[in-house]
C-alpha cells in the first residue's frame, strides 16, 4: 500500500493556516499533535447531535452514547492489541495514568525499602509519582544509565533488576528519540520477579504497538499525542493486576455500593473511572485511532523513518560541527524526535528566531531534567515530526536556523 501523504497532510486544517503569509511548519508533535478533520468532525458532530451521559441513564440517546464510548475503548484496545477492552482504563492523560499505577498498584504492593527501577531518560511523569511514593512509603529508586549515543545501557541490567519490584521505563525517549528494546526489558523484569510498566506516550502514536508481544504488565499513553483530543489518556494493564488493585479516585461510577460506613468497588475498568468521564474526548480518541488505522501504523513508521533520516542528514550536512543532534543516529532505534544544540545559541532564542518563519519547535527541558543534567545542558531545542510532516518542513527548519546565525552568529 502506498499512502498519499499530501492527502494526509491536507486532513489537518491547521496546517493550511498562514501567519504573515507563510504556512505553519509544525515540528512540535512530540509535545502534542495536531488533529485531522476526521477527529474534529467526530467530536463536533457528537456534540451537535448525540451528546448524552454515559452508563447511568436508560434512554436511547444515552444508550447510544454509551455504546460509542465503549466502542472507543474497544478501538483503543485493538490499537495496542490488548487482550480485552476491559483492560483499558481511561484517564485524563498519561501522567494521571502513571500516577494511578504508582499510587494504586505501588501503594498496595510496595513497602519501605522496596525498589523501583527507572531509567535516566524518563519524563517527569514517570519520575515524580515514584518520588512521591518514596516520600510517602519509603520506596527506593534505581536508575538504568545511558550509553554515549543515548541508548539504555543494559550491560548491567540483571544486577540493576536484582530485588526490584517494578521496572518503569519509556518505550521511546521524548528528548533523544531513542526507541528502547521493550520486549527484552519486560522479559528481564519478569525474570527478576518485577512487573514492567511501559511509558508508551511517544511510542504508540508512531509505531505498531502490541502490548502482548511486549509481555508488559502496564502501558500508558495519551490521546493528544496521537491525533486525538486533549483531556483523555489511557492505562492498559493486565486484568489480574487491575482487578487486585485498590481504587485510585473515589466517587460515582466506580462503586458497587456506598453506605455511611464504607463502600465497595465496581469491576474494572469502572473501578478506576470515577465521575463523569471525558465523553466527547473518548469519541475523538476512538476516531483518532481509526484514522491512524486507516493509514496503517507500519506506513506511519516508515514515513517518519524516512523523514527523520532526511532531517538528520540535512542538518548535519548543512551545519556540520555547528549542530549537535542528541540521541542515536541509527533510525532503526530512534523515532522522529530530534533535540539539538546549535552554535551555543540558547534554545529559547533558537525557537524565537525559528518562530519568525512559523517554524514551531520546543525549547526547554522537555520535562526531563535528570536527562538534561546528564547531557550537561539546561535545555535543548527539539524538532519532532509526525505523519503530516514532509521534507519541506525539514527544509524550512534548516533555512530558518540561518536566521539564528545571523543574529547570534558572532557569539
Amino acid at each position: 500500500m502506498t499512502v498519499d501523504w499530501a492527502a494526509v497532510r491536507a486532513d489537518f486544517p491547521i496546517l493550511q493556516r498562514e501567519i504573515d503569509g507563510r504556512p505553519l511548519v509544525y515540528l512540535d508533535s512530540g509535545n502534542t499533535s495536531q488533529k485531522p478533520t476526521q477527529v474534529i468532525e467526530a467530536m463536533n458532530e457528537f456534540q451537535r447531535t448525540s451528546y448524552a451521559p454515559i452508563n447511568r441513564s436508560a434512554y436511547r440517546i444515552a444508550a447510544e452514547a454509551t455504546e460509542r464510548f465503549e466502542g472507543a475503548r474497544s478501538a483503543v484496545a485493538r490499537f495496542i492489541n490488548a487482550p480485552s477492552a476491559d483492560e483499558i482504563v481511561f484517564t485524563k492523560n498519561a501522567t494521571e495514568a502513571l500516577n494511578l499505577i504508582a499510587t494504586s498498584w505501588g501503594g498496595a504492593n510496595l513497602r519501605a525499602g522496596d525498589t523501583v527501577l527507572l531509567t535516566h531518560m524518563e519524563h517527569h511523569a514517570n519520575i515524580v509519582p515514584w518520588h512521591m511514593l518514596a516520600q510517602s512509603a519509603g520506596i527506593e529508586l534505581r536508575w538504568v544509565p545511558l550509553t554515549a549515543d543515548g541508548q539504555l545501557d543494559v550491560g548491567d541490567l540483571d544486577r540493576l533488576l536484582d530485588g526490584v519490584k517494578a521496572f518503569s521505563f519509556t518505550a521511546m525517549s521524548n528528548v533523544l528519540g531513542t526507541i528502547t528494546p521493550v520486549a527484552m526489558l519486560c522479559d528481564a523484569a519478569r525474570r527478576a520477579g518485577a512487573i514492567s510498566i511501559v511509558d508508551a506516550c511517544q511510542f504508540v502514536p508512531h509505531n505498531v504497538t502490541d502490548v502482548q508481544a511486549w509481555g508488559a504488565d502496564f502501558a500508558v499513553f495519551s490521546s493528544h499525542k496521537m491525533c486525538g483530543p486533549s483531556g483523555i489518556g489511557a492505562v492498559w494493564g493486565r486484568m489480574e493486576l487491575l482487578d487486585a488493585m485498590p481504587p485510585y479516585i473515589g466517587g460515582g461510577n466506580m462503586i458497587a455500593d456506598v453506605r455511611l460506613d464504607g463502600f465497595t468497588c465496581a469491576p474494572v475498568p469502572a473501578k478506576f473511572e470515577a465521575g463523569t468521564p471525558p465523553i466527547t474526548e473518548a469519541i475523538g480518541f476512538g476516531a483518532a485511532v481509526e484514522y491512524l488505522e486507516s493509514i496503517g501504523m507500519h506506513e506511519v513508521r516508515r514515513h517518519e523513518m524516512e523523514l527523520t533520516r532526511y532531517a538528520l542528514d540535512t542538518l548535519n550536512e548543512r551545519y556540520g560541527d555547528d549542530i549537535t543532534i542528541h540521541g542515536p543516529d541509527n533510525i532503526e532505534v530512534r523515532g522522529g524526535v530530534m533535540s539539538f544544540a546549535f552554535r551555543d545559541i540558547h534554545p529559547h532564542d533558537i525557537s524565537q528566531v525559528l518562530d519568525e518563519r512559523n517554524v514551531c519547535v520546543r525549547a526547554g527541558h522537555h520535562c526531563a531534567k535528570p536527562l538534561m543534567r546528564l547531557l550537561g545542558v539546561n535545555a535543548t531545542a527539539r524538532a519532532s515530526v509526525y505523519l503530516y510532516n514532509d521534507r519541506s518542513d525539514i527544509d524550512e527548519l534548516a533555512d530558518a536556523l540561518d536566521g539564528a546565525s545571523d543574529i547570534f552568529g558572532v557569539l
Partner: protein
Amino acid sequence: MPGLEDLYREIILDHYRTPRNRGELPVPPARHAEGHNPLCGDEITVFLDVQQVDGVDVVSDVKVSGQGCSISQSSASMMSQAVKGKPVAEVRALVRKFKGLMSIEVDDAGAADVDVPLGDLEALQGVVKFPVRIKCATLAWNTLTQALDS
C-alpha cells in the same frame, strides 16, 4: 507582527555576550537567592552584599551566576549594573519600575511612576511585544527581590 529587531537590540546582545558582574560572592556575609524559569529551564543565582552606609542599607556588591537565554542573561547583567551601589529602597523602586516596563501590575499602583532612571534597561521594552519572553526578562529581578527579602 513585531520584528525580531525589537527584541534583540544591539545593547541586549552586548550584555548577553559580555555579561557584567558575573560570578559569586561568599555567603555569608553575602546573601543569595536562586530563581528558575520552568519554561526554558533557566536558572539564575543572585548574590548581594548589603551594607549600612550612613545608616542606610546599600547594595554594595552584586554578582550573578547561572545560565539562560539572551533575554534573561542580558536582563540580569543590566540589573546588576543598575543596582550596584544603590540604596536598597531605591533598588526596590527600580524593581517596581522595571516590572511596570514589563507591563506587570505592581501592588501599589503609583510605584511604577517613581522617578528612577532605567538607563540601558529601556532597551528591554521590546520584550513586552513577546509576552512569552517577559518571564525571561523578569527572572533576575524576581530573584533579586527574593535575595533582598531573604
